[in-house]
């Protein structure tokens, strides 16, 4: 039966939505006179879906037919779901027309495995060729490499795409064996290693790569997950790791029982820790260890780190280096820059910091401003934790409130 284009769009975007990655940032501005499309260094969100996620790219599968049978995946071969496929030309046409209306930054193309790995990769390559050569399209294209396809095909895709990725999905080989019998970690990383070697040979800026890890489907601790990510960053293999709170779409004897809420807070804390590793100069072993294998849900990882290392605090705002400033809980890269900029002109006080709109909610416990410091809470882990996790006092004055001072209504 031939499906109409709306039904195809519905099926194929529905199947792709569990992929978290949708960023279009980190590429050079590259417009060419007389051509269509440009990437934007900071990335641009074109709208936000009802789950609050940024929509930047047209994220679809070329097809959701699949010969694999991975337990966690909605498109596994044994599932009885509606299937559809775009033709490469059809998809290229939609991409261009969406782009011209400023709906999207570009395309995020993934696919189920149809017929064979190589056949699938060829179809994806065809889409890229139509976009890049026929439409002269310079916008962003993210391609999911198909593990197990030929090196020649991967090489051609890497030359045309802005970013490529391959999802590891599960943080250890044991879990992969359990839930994705057709995949191994080696097989998943193979296309990424190939793409890295290719881009090292080239003189231009290396291509960005990313991967995704599912959190909460298998028993790995946060420590193991974070360790895996930072190893991947160190090997210059990846630019980004995405964490995806496990959302049950299938039932399977090896999967956790269906729960109604995905572990969103755990996912959030993992992202915070990931940021600390990538931008704040933290090592994964500073944040977590074998003894403390999981992130605290009540407080963010930087605050936890600070409470473990109270001998480094309080930090003097007026003399600390940038590296020290960004280690203060509640002060980010922007805040640190503001402080560095402002203190060139005068010594900063708590009041100055508030004027600069730097949040002191957490930071005040960990800083001094030229002999000025908060005196209510002593610098011990228990007292700090109590102060930081205390429920917010919200007092809504009502009509019958009696003034504490005069006793008047």
């Amino acid at each position, binding site marked *: 039966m031939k499906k109409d284009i709306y039904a195809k769009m519905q099926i194929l975007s529905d199947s792709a939505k569990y992929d978290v990655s949708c960023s279009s940032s980190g590429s050079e501005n590259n417009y060419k006179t007389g051509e269509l499309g440009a990437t934007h260094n900071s990335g641009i969100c074109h709208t936000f879906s009802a789950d609050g996620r940024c929509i930047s790219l047209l994220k679809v599968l070329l097809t959701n037919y699949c010969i694999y049978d991975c337990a966690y995946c909605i498109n596994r071969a044994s599932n009885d779901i509606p299937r559809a496929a775009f033709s490469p030309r059809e998809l290229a046409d939609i991409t261009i027309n969406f782009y011209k209306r400023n709906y999207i930054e570009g395309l995020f193309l993934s696919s189920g495995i149809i017929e064979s790995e190589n056949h699938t990769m060829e179809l994806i390559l065809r889409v890229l060729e139509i976009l890049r050569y026929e439409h002269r399209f310079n916008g962003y294209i993210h391609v999911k490499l198909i593990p197990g396809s030929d090196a020649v095909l991967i090489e051609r895709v890497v030359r045309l795409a802005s970013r490529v990725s391959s999802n590891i999905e599960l943080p250890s080989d044991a879990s992969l064996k359990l839930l994705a019998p057709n995949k191994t970690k080696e097989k998943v990383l193979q296309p990424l290693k190939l793409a890295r070697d290719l881009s090292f040979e080239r003189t231009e800026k290396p291509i960005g790569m990313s991967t995704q890890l599912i959190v909460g489907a298998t028993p790995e601790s946060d420590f193991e997950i974070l360790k895996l990510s930072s190893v991947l960053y160190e090997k210059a293999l990846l630019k980004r790791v995405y964490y995806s709170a496990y959302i049950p779409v299938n039932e399977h004897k090896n999967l956790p029982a269906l729960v109604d809420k995905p572990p969103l807070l755990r996912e959030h804390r993992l992202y915070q820790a990931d940021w600390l590793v990538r931008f704040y100069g933290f090592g994964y072993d500073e944040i977590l260890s074998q003894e403390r294998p999981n992130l605290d849900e009540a407080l963010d990882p930087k605050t936890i780190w600070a409470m473990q290392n109270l001998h480094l605090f309080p930090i003097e705002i007026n003399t600390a280096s940038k590296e020290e400033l960004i280690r203060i809980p509640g002060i980010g890269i922007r805040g640190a820059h503001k402080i560095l900029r402002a203190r060139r002109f*005068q010594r900063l006080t708590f009041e100055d910091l508030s004027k600069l709109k730097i949040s002191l909610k957490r930071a005040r416990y960990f800083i001094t401003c030229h002999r000025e410091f908060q005196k209510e809470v002593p610098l011990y882990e228990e007292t700090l934790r109590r102060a930081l996790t205390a429920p917010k006092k919200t007092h809504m004055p009502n009509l019958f409130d009696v003034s504490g001072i005069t006793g008047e209504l």
Partner: protein
Amino acid sequence: MILVYDGTFEGFLSLVHEVYYKKYVPHAITKKEPHANLLDEVVTIEYDEAKAVKVFRALQKEFPKEAQKTIMHIFLCDTNPFELDLLEYIKLGFKNQKELQNINNPHVFTIINLQKELFRHYHKYSGFLRFEELEDGTLYAKIDSKFSLTYLLGAHFVKRFNNQNFIIHDVKRALAFAKYAEEAQVRSVADFELPSLSDEEEKFKKLWQTFFKSVAIETRKNERLQKQLVPLVYRTYMSEFIETKVFKVLLFVHWIYC
């Protein structure tokens, strides 16, 4: 003392000239004749080309490039009463241009933050602006924004749509950025009648709405977050939200009358 000027950049430069040479100390600067009380002295400043040019030359000479850009940008924030802060910013720059970096100064801080707000709006609209294809292939977008963004957005889209013709129409300010072939400029629009849309427009709008709906994950639904990220003011011309709004109104009507 209240100073009144005509609201243009040139008019403001004339005002700066007068402040310097007549030693005015205004406590307010407005674009329109204010309802002042009897005690306020109101001085209306007429645009004077010679004075404006003189101040402009001085700005070019004394101010670093970045600060000159900032002053231009502040003028795009036309719904914000920025005049007093901008005047102080300019006075400060003439005194000592290093002080323009000093964010401890409340005027500098206000100006820099206002510029940041402008950039934030500009960045949001570079994603949220929606074009429709007209019969002749021209892309047409309407915008209804707090600040005047047609210049910035025009430059942004010239890069992306380099082989397209397009118009960005600021409805409230009656301004439009138009790019046709090699030519690109901002013009004022007195009266505009929208030509018919291309035959394919409906199809792609519908495809987009389909995509928008099906890409959201039901178990992660979070409309509060969505509203925080795309506040309602931006949604006026975004088709993916318009459709659901109409639907909600219909539901409401149904609920009242049936």
